[in-house]
């Protein structure tokens, strides 16, 4: 019941929003809808936890062995919660923006939420593929209609990139489907598929390229900085806060347990790509003058670390990925909100043109510093918990042959992330004001509210992460036992 609601509410309210011509009412309608979704998601976490509440299965394409199977396991709960939390935050933070054809904008945002929910909740490979693509289409329209100057070519690149990836994955899905015992797309059947190790190797890349493009992993990342820069910030928040998690999620749910042998065999190759990407993205981030591009490259580095942690396949690193997926979503949305606030007031994102904002907008500065420190993974912030687990996991991995090297290089990239983040804070918020920044006012109530909630979330998870860790423990055990690394107790 709960998972169906989580998909259907944004879907229907999104379709309805196309017909609400008034900007104000469209906005309120969208906010109302995402709040309802959030409430449902929390209900699923707290009150309605019985098996029948959390799983649903309806006939869809029985001839092909595919059904509308959705469910919430620990990982689904976590990412569903992230999706449900992210959208209200985004809508409230950008409440004062006004868009041309606002009803279409909000409708597409809601549809992309429906697509994301579907991806995270699908228990059926074909259904998963359906939603995987459906999440992309609204994002494409959002970016190319409301984005910056170069939006059309940039978004197009993004679309073609992801589409190629998805189609390769589709072949993989079809191939695995023909090797399942009962010719079915159901998740359990996929986990039972018998595929020769030789075939697993090339199948692995069919799947992994799709996920790598989405995350993005070096060398498939070139669409990402451009797209983040050109998209309207609200969409960028969806893309970087939630949508990139689709890639990690895909690896954990649809790749590692389905092709475990290839996942071990190719783990170090993927790990190498990840660490190259981390260092590379961090170095570029240090050179950026544009705030949006800086955050974009920093996101590549963080995603690389999480992907690496999946492929070293240890218990701790897997747990780290789970909690870090949530944390990264929260933190990066916080960063985007700050960027958005600066850009809206000053009409520039150039770091070199800013300075001394802390004097004029102390509220903004305090909140930003906390979010930024979380991005660097300082203790007491949520990212510390995540990265601690990630690094412990990578360091102690028994699967990877080069775990020490990976851990060391990844550690360097964290230092680099401190360099560019702190440098950014210093140059944007401290120092002297210039002509441009002298007239800045502090943030409004709604903006303060959102950033405040995010900061509270950062600190709470940073101090007391246990509920989240317990939530996903079951999934981690199940996945790892599918990979035959750890047997359930």
């Amino acid at each position: 019941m709960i998972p169906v609601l989580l998909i259907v509410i944004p879907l229907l309210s999104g379709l309805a929003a196309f017909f609400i011509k008034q900007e104000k009412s469209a906005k309120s309608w969208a906010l109302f809808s995402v709040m309802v979704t959030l409430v449902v998601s929390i209900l699923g976490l707290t009150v309605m936890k019985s098996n029948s509440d959390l799983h649903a299965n309806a006939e869809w394409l029985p001839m092909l062995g595919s059904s509308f199977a959705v469910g919430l396991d620990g990982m689904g709960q976590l990412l569903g919660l992230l999706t449900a939390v992210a959208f209200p935050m985004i809508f409230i933070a950008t409440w004062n923006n006004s868009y041309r054809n606002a009803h279409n904008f909000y409708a597409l945002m809601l549809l992309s939420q429906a697509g994301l929910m579907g991806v995270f909740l699908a228990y059926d490979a074909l259904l998963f593929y359906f939603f995987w693509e459906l999440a992309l289409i609204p994002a494409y329209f959002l970016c190319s209609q409301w984005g910056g100057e170069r939006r059309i070519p940039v978004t197009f690149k993004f679309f073609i990139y992801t589409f190629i990836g998805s189609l390769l994955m589709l072949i993989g899905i079809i191939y695995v489907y023909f090797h399942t015992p009962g010719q079915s797309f159901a998740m359990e059947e996929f986990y039972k598929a018998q595929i020769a190790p030789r075939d697993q190797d090339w199948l692995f890349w069919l799947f992994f390229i799709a996920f790598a493009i989405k995350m993005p992993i070096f060398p498939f990342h070139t669409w990402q900085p451009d797209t983040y820069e050109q998209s309207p910030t609200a969409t960028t928040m969806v893309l970087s806060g939630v949508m990139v998690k689709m890639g990690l999620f895909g690896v954990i749910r649809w790749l590692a347990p389905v092709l475990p042998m290839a996942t071990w065999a190719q783990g170090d190759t993927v790990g190498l790509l990840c660490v190259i990407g981390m260092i590379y993205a961090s170095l570029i981030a240090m050179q950026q003058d544009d705030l949006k591009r800086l955050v974009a490259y920093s996101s590549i580095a963080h995603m690389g670390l999480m992907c690496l942690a999946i492929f070293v396949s240890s218990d701790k690193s897997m747990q780290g990925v789970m909690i870090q997926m949530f944390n990264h979503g929260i933190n990066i949305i916080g960063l985007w909100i700050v960027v958005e606030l600066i850009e809206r007031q000053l009409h520039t994102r150039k770091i070199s043109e800013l300075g001394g904002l802390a004097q004029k907008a102390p509220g903004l500065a305090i909140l930003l510093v906390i979010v930024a420190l979380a991005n660097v993974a300082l203790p007491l912030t949520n990212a510390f918990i995540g990265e601690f687990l990630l690094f412990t996991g990578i360091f102690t991995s028994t699967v990877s042959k080069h775990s020490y090297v990976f851990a060391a290089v990844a550690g360097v990239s964290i230092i680099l992330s401190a360099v560019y983040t702190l440098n950014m804070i210093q140059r944007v918020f401290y120092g002297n004001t210039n002509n441009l920044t002298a007239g800045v006012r502090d943030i409004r109530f709604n903006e303060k509210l959102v950033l405040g909630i995010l900061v509270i979330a950062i600190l709470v998870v940073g101090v007391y992460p246990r509920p989240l860790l317990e939530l996903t423990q079951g999934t981690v055990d199940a996945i790892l036992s599918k990979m035959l690394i750890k047997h359930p107790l």
Partner: protein
Amino acid sequence: MNAIIISAIWGVVMMFSGVFSKSNAVVRIMALTGIALLLFVNVLEWNGVQLFHVNVRNMLSFDSFGLFFNTIAFGSTALYFLLSGRDMEKVGLHVAEYYALIFFILCGISIASSFNTLLMLFLGIEIISIPLYIITGTDKRNLKSNEASLKYFLMGAFSTGLMLMGITLIYGAKGSFNMDDISLGTYAMTPMLGAGLLLLLFSMAFKVSAAPFHFWTPDVYDGAPTVFTSFMATIVKAGAFIAFLRLFEGSFEGMHPQWQTLVAIITAATLFIGNITAVFQQSVKRMLAYSSIAQAGFMMLALVAMNGMAKEGLVYYTLAYSLATIGVFAILIKMKDYTFEGFNGLAKHQPVLAATNTIFLLSLAGIPATAGFMAKFYMLSAAVSNGHVMWLVILGVLCAAISVYYYFRVIQAMYFKDGDTQQMDTTPGFKGLLVLMAAFVVLIGIFPQWIIDKLYNIF
């Protein structure tokens, strides 16, 4: 049998309707009545009601595969008449004759979907082709239309020659025109049989515009009046494909391993050339011509795979492809300017047209939740389950990704670019029908079950 006879008779009726009535509206209503009647008698036959008792001596076989395809073809034609019938009247003065020619083509299609001997195949293909040559040249005062017609006729005559030659050689090798006899006996590829098979393959590849026999397609599709391009690119092409599959399944399935690689190479070339060339087009009409080649490449996958899934998939594909292409063309016909720039800003002035066009284009590109996705899914599944042509499958999806480029250029023009206001003569009925079609495309894309059920009951 019902459909063959009724469509032939109705073609003659349409010819005379122009003599007795000067009003285009009357002619149009006659044509709609005719197509409704055709649909009706075809469904009757599907349910076992034979209106005519003709001893066909096993030269035709009316199995439900052919009848189901006929239903799709007639249904699409009905939609086509409803959407574009008024535009047909702008081509020239002899409206009744255009309708008559189309009914003759439908007669050819019903033969091509039910033949059981090579002679009937030849008859069917020719009955389709000859009216097409005429219909291509209906814009008499337009040089391009004349050129297209002549080109089509010369090339078509040539490929017909190839086909006859092929049939002769096969007759020489097997001693029969009947497909049941041809498929019997040894699977050994004697030189004569092999040559006959090759010639048949080439001539059929010509008819479905598969590479390297596709060179006539862009010029003919571009030169013909746009209303008729729409018909040629959809229903006719689908009919030719059904004949292609029927021929190779009925006669040469036993030799499948021996010709599979060759067909796979033709398929790869078709996919590649169609998609790559479409990228460079400036005119949407020409782009759609190349896109029809590219889509033919996808349909060819059914022949490469040649299994149950492929057969179902091809029928589903023709449905999905015809619906979407008829829709796109119906909108294109209304445009003044056929270049991509001509579509600029359409979303602002004509939101309904732009939205429905987007759905049709998404379906052609094969995005999930549209019929086009399930169609491509079927083709890919068929080819993957065949097991020998993984390289072709990978090439196919890469080409599908390329196709996104040119389909989305139209969407970009409509939604993200600004353009001048255009006056378009669209009626509420036209828009309503487009919306219904778009809804149907989405519906069978999300719930293909009921249509698949139909397919399963048939095979």
